[in-house]
């Protein structure tokens, strides 16, 4: 129970970080991606700040732990190869990000604003995730067969 509560709290912090940095404002995001236009580099500072904190924790605290404080093991991705799925998926994700100005976290947080664009974005994003989920299950079934 305490673990679930902490995870809720981390979600709140994450959302506040997105809001304070204005990742939740699609116009701000488009301004960052518009390198050849009236470029606003602010959001590079968001990623740099977040990544720096993560890197410090990963380099200096993570190696001292044999398991996470509230779980019995770490659940880390075990993929190492740079493959077609990674590249193609990233290209597609980037096009969607550029079109809408939303990525997944900010989209979910922006639902609270009740802006129509956030609602439409999240509904279609959920559909996109579901299509991938069904498609990949079918695909992996075929691979097993």
């Amino acid at each position, binding site marked *: 129970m305490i673990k679930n509560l902490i995870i809720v709290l981390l979600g709140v912090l994450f959302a506040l970080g997105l809001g304070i940095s204005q990742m939740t404002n699609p116009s701000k995001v488009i301004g960052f991606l518009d390198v050849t236009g009236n470029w606003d580099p602010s959001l590079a500072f968001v990623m740099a700040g*977040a990544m720096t904190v993560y890197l410090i924790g990963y380099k200096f605290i993570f190696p001292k732990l044999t398991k996470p404080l509230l779980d019995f093991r770490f659940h880390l991705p075990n993929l190492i190869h740079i493959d077609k799925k990674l590249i193609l998926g990233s290209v597609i994700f980037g096009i*969607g990000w550029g079109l809408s100005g939303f990525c997944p976290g900010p989209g979910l947080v922006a639902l609270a604003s009740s802006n129509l664009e956030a609602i439409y974005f999240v509904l279609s994003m959920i559909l996109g995730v579901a299509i991938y989920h069904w498609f990949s299950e079918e695909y992996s079934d075929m691979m097993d067969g």
Partner: protein
Amino acid sequence: MENFTPISSVLGGLLIGFSSIAMLLLSGRIAGISSILENGLFAWKDVQNRIWSLWFIVGLFLGGELLRVFMPESFGGAHLHKMWMVVLGGLLVGFGSRLGSGCTSGHGVCGLGRLSSRSLVSVLVFMSSAGLTVWVVRSFFP
């Protein structure tokens, strides 16, 4: 450059980074929102292993409510984009982020923070395709 906000950007980034690394050190999970969303949507298939995703999403919604009450300006103005772009964008973001195993948080924050070469490639690729898309939109669909 008149909209440049380096201080609030770094501040927000630090919060995001703190939440993400705390997620790893406390519960051993990667705070990548696209995989959290997929896990949450299909949590019923493996409740034991996925239910935490729903709790995190609850936290995102609560945080959104706090923003709406105390910092409504963080959402910007509404209706700046053509709706077909938002809907198509959502589909592509959902599908592409799962195909590529991550988005701005999973690859951009956690992946780069773990010095993953897969994540570095992903970030460079999606930044480029997003930038190009914005240029195309501005040039051809003003």
